[in-house]
């Protein structure tokens, strides 16, 4: 029984550490005067949120969606377009974004789920491209140059144009989402989803109308990504078709895998590692000799590409997943 206690304690240690680190980051940033770290932290949390959304259907549900970035775009453009017309209420931004995403996700999900396996992946990718081109075609709203956001979201007294407010709002949204996801995974819906991932054929034979539940899961994951898109727009003060490009969808998948499929905190770990790595390679440098840093700053994408290939070939359960597995328990 002592082993079990040890294991339970360890299982909560890592997430608790991550949460604490994120909660205290702005304090440290202000104290050292390096407010740029706060921006990076916000970016990590935004992408952690998006990855968490994808994780619902990818990590727990085994649906490989290569098109989730489109919901990031919906969230971002909702803010941008409404702001363009002078609306600064965050509540309206949020409601609009969620409404549009729900409608789109239901239709797109229903069409995509008619396909299985490889075809599903490709169709989700095609739909994301569709939205990408749609955004480029919207010349009134910036076209391929994107749209500047002048009025950022205001939720009552909380004005997201203040960097620290934005940070803690993002933090709150991320935490609430993770808690909700934890509950969902252990509720009937979550058990069903995980059952489908493990043995879809058997689920149908038991009497579950599988597609119905997959569609709902897809819509829920889309909504989480939409919220991330809203926060991203507030962070960058910009909405661009590039938010919906295929490589962003691919990046989200990488974040989920890096962190470990099927764990709730995994996406946060994945996002943290990835973005820190990206920042290090492009800005801070690794301290490589012989102009190595400059070379790296030029070609960091290729280097990350190699890393991705390596992770895909060697790591079966991601960074966090590997950590949990070594403790010898189920990743929950």
């Amino acid at each position, binding site marked *: 029984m002592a082993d079990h206690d040890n294991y339970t304690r360890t299982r909560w240690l890592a997430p608790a550490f991550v949460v604490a680190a994120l909660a205290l980051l702005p304090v440290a940033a202000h104290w050292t005067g390096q407010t740029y770290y706060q921006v990076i932290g916000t970016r990590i949390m935004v992408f952690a949120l998006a990855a968490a959304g994808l994780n619902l259907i990818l990590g727990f549900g085994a649906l490989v969606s290569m098109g989730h970035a489109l919901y990031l775009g919906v969230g971002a453009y909702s803010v941008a377009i409404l702001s363009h017309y002078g609306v600064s209420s965050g509540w309206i931004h949020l409601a609009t974004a969620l409404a549009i995403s729900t409608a789109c996700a239901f239709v797109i999900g229903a069409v995509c789920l008619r396909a299985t396996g490889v075809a599903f992946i490709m169709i989700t990718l095609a739909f994301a491209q569709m939205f990408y081109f749609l955004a480029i075609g919207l010349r009134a709203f910036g076209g391929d140059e994107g749209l500047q956001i002048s009025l950022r979201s205001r939720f009552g007294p909380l004005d997201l144009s203040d960097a620290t407010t934005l940070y803690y709002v993002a933090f709150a949204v991320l935490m609430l989402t993770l808690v909700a996801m934890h509950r*969902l995974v*252990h509720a*009937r819906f979550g058990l069903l989803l995980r059952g489908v991932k493990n043995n879809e054929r*058997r689920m149908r*034979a*038991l*009497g*579950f109308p599988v597609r119905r*539940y997959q569609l709902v899961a897809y819509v829920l994951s889309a909504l989480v990504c939409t919220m991330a898109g809203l926060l991203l727009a507030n962070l960058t003060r910009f909405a661009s078709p590039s938010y919906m490009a295929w490589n962003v969808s691919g990046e989200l998948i990488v974040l989920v895998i890096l962190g470990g499929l099927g764990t709730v905190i995994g996406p946060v770990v994945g996002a943290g590692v990835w973005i820190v790595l990206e920042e290090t390679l492009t800005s801070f440098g690794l301290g490589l000799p012989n102009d190595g840093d400059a070379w790296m700053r030029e070609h960091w994408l290729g280097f990350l590409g190699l890393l991705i290939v390596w992770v895909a070939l060697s790591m079966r359960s991601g960074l966090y997943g590997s950590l949990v597995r070594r403790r010898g328990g*189920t990743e929950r």
Partner: protein
Amino acid sequence: MSLLSVRQLVKRFGGVLATDHLDLEFQAGELHAVIGPNGAGKTTLINLLSGELPSTQGSIVFQGRDITQLPVDARALRGVARSYQVTSVFTEFTAAENVILAVQARSGHSFSFWRPVLADRSLREPALEMLATVGLLRLADERVCNLAYGECRQLEIAMTLAMQPKVLLLDEPMAGMSQRESQSIVDLLLRLKGEYAIVLVEHDMDAVFALADRISVLVYGRCIATGSAENIRSSSEVKAAYLGGEETTL
């Protein structure tokens, strides 16, 4: 009227006629065994009955209603449950969770996002009861990947029973089992006989003759004989088709 019947059922795979105009009846409370040499189309029949394979022609009638066009999950909810020849359980879950899923399928919808499913007594208690019925209660919280092969087969049956079916389609439940393990399945089926209609596909002849009320013999997708165990045992046609004319005790 029979509980489940197939009429002129045909299944073609390209040029191959796997199921050749079958006419079979399965009665409530009866254990009806389907036997035949390999390639006779026995598993195909189970797949057609459960809905995993769409039929080419013919109809399947259950409780007086034509279910030929119904998908797998709809048939399952009506009471047509199957177990698999190659064990098909949820390896990542515990035994209890496996059966809980089976119970969950028929206890309303699963759009429940907040309450922990494992704490739900209305799901947990029937699940544990079912595990007890097949003799697996002590392994309830053990992950399935740690279970022995025979125990997984028992779990298969527990899950199938948890669906509160009216007809059980059992596809070689004793495949790959030792003598002792097979005997425990036979004992279990003897206990269940009478409560359900059971369609049993099996190669283990001892078990078939111990359990079956009626036997149908399939060869190359056609039913060449149907009758009581005695009739089938003494039928020369069956011996010829099955054993190639050799004299052997069945």
